[in-house]
């Protein structure tokens, strides 16, 4: 019932690669990291702030959902709600709590979101599958209502939007320049991704996957599925909360409930479907794909068709295209772009070996 990213057979291909492809993989990873560090130095402010940074943040959100859905097998449509919790928690901590050391604010906001996630994960002890999904929807709508209804959450302003007061970062102002924002985000995203990757390789990750593949069987071999499901909800919401705060304040600057509606939840879900369920890299690949495709479509529409296309038609076309892509990926490649890349790498490697 709740085996979302379950593979019918163990992925022998991937296991083999973990041994033989280790060197290549870590080289590729270091190269990518170096490229990401160089982004603000060699590209424009636009590319850094409007293209790369949001992809990193959405990828982090995707990672949060992937922990819950891809690894622990619990589907959720409440990602947007938990991102909102993170953003509003950070705001409340800064305004009402006076905590203006940004890394601390962010972590505490994540912890608060995690606790909220734990609460909304409680029903999963008794129920599963679609019923858990409904719980997550309840969270989504509840928070949309809560943050709009009580002015305390937006500091009794005239409009229900929030933006951070000057936040400290070892003497730097986080709202200062885009370069600071970018490096701060990059450092956070890399650290959190590294943590998630280690967590998934540990016994926690293996227990999650056992629950995902068949929770009855996992119970039989002595895995406390209640505990690990609750943990998955908590950690997932922790990641989503931090991603929400980064999205709201670092990328958007000024935000409101409108940035975290159910469309956001769908977007995060689409990121992990297209990028790859149960894959860490997949989140960032999916985020890049989902976030950049509309920009590319926009660009081509403007270049080749001109301004005759109304934005309404274009947005409907995008919607159509996204839906179609989701269906195509689910039918043809349920493991997402990540799997396609892995196959491509494997083919290149075999080809190289043949030549050598």
């Amino acid at each position, binding site marked *: *019932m*709740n*085996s*979302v990213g*379950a593979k019918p057979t163990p992925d022998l291909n991937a296991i083999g690669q973990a041994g033989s492809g280790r060197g290549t993989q870590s080289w590729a990873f270091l190269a990518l990291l170096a490229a990401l560090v160089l982004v603000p130095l060699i590209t424009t402010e636009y590319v850094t702030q409007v293209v790369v940074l949001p992809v990193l943040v959405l990828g982090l959100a995707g990672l949060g959902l992937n922990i819950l859905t891809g690894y622990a097998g619990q*589907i959720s449509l409440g990602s947007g709600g938990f991102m909102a919790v993170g953003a509003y928690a950070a705001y409340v901590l800064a305004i009402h709590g006076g905590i203006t050391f940004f890394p601390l604010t962010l972590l505490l906001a994540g912890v608060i979101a995690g606790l909220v996630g734990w609460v909304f994960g409680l*029903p999963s002890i*008794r*129920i599963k*599958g*679609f*019923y858990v*999904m*409904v*719980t997550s*929807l*309840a969270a989504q*709508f*509840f928070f*949309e*209502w809560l943050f709009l*209804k*009580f002015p305390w959450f937006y500091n009794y302003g005239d409009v229900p939007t929030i933006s951070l007061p000057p936040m400290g970062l070892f003497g730097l102002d986080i709202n200062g320049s885009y370069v600071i924002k970018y490096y701060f985000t990059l450092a956070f995203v890399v650290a959190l991704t590294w943590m998630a990757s280690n967590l998934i390789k540990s016994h926690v990750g293996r227990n999650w996957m056992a629950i995902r593949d*068949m929770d*009855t*069987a996992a119970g*039989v071999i002595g895995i406390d599925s209640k505990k690990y499901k609750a943990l998955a909800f908590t950690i997932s919401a922790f990641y989503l909360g931090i991603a929400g705060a980064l999205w709201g304040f670092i990328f958007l600057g000024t935000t409101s409930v409108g940035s975290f509606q*159910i469309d956001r939840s*769908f977007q995060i*879900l689409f990121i992990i*479907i297209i990028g790859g369920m149960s894959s860490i890299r997949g989140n960032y690949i999916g985020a890049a794909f989902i976030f950049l495709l509309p920009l590319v479509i926009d660009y081509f529409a403007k270049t080749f068709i001109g301004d005759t296309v109304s934005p*309404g*038609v274009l947005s*409907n*076309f*995008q*919607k*159509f*295209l*996204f*839906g*179609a*892509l*989701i*269906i195509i990926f*689910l*039918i043809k490649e*349920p493991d997402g772009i990540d799997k396609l890349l892995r196959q491509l790498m494997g083919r290149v490697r075999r080809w190289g070996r043949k030549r050598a």
Partner: protein
Amino acid sequence: MILFVETLIGGLLAGTMYSLVAIGFVLIFKASGVFNYSQGALLLFSALALVTFLEMGLSFWPAVLVTMVVMVILSIIIERVVLRPLANRNVMTLFMATLGLTYVIEGAAQGLMGSEVRLLDIGLEDNALFWGDILISEFDLIVACGAAVLVIALAIFFSKTRIGISLRAVADDAAAAQSIGININRIWQIVWAVAAVVGLISGMVWGARQGVAFSLSLVVLKALPVLIIGGFTSIMGAIVGGLLIGAGEALAETYLGPLVGGGITPWFAYVLALAFLFIRPVGLFGEYKVERV
């Protein structure tokens, strides 16, 4: 007291509109185990198509008929292109496919037929009727009667006709049904077509109520708690669940709303559903299943 009864009746009547949407879900879930998120999009598509045909100058009943034909063709295409390649995949994959389908249908519907709000006149007037001192909306009353007729028609279809009986056979055990020669793909097409027609009827009702626009598609989110309460596999459950949610929502907004500042309708149904989950996770009319390792 009058306020209470009025709220209750108003809520119950509004609840029949939720039931209509939920019935479309149950039909498809029963027959194919697909949790069809795109039911709301189908609703939007059918209502938009109907409005478009009416604007093209067709009179009411021919327009309904043409829309019905369009919806049946759409269902057959959906089965052929989306569901058949995904046969035997796990239920979550199928659910996510219907999410994608929702985007496709919404994009196509609004791209082809426009995304501005349009009025749909189905010839029902919304007069206030009085029963003693109690005010009842005529529109809601007629819709409720219509829903009752629809449910009876579906019940007859499922228990008396050949197609209906094979449909129940497929729902009971797809493999066994196939082995006695029932064409399972054909059954899926039929059930999606029936669900699309139910979608058309709910689209007409909702469209007449709140105008035909994108928000119709979100009606699907109202149907989920109904399903939780009624159970995913029971039409009876969908009806009772819809009534409960409708009544609960109306009463909560009237009596509980003022305490917390109002506007609680978007999530109250979900909280009600969650409370149900803790007491009876399979819903009022659902069946417990034994899982084997």
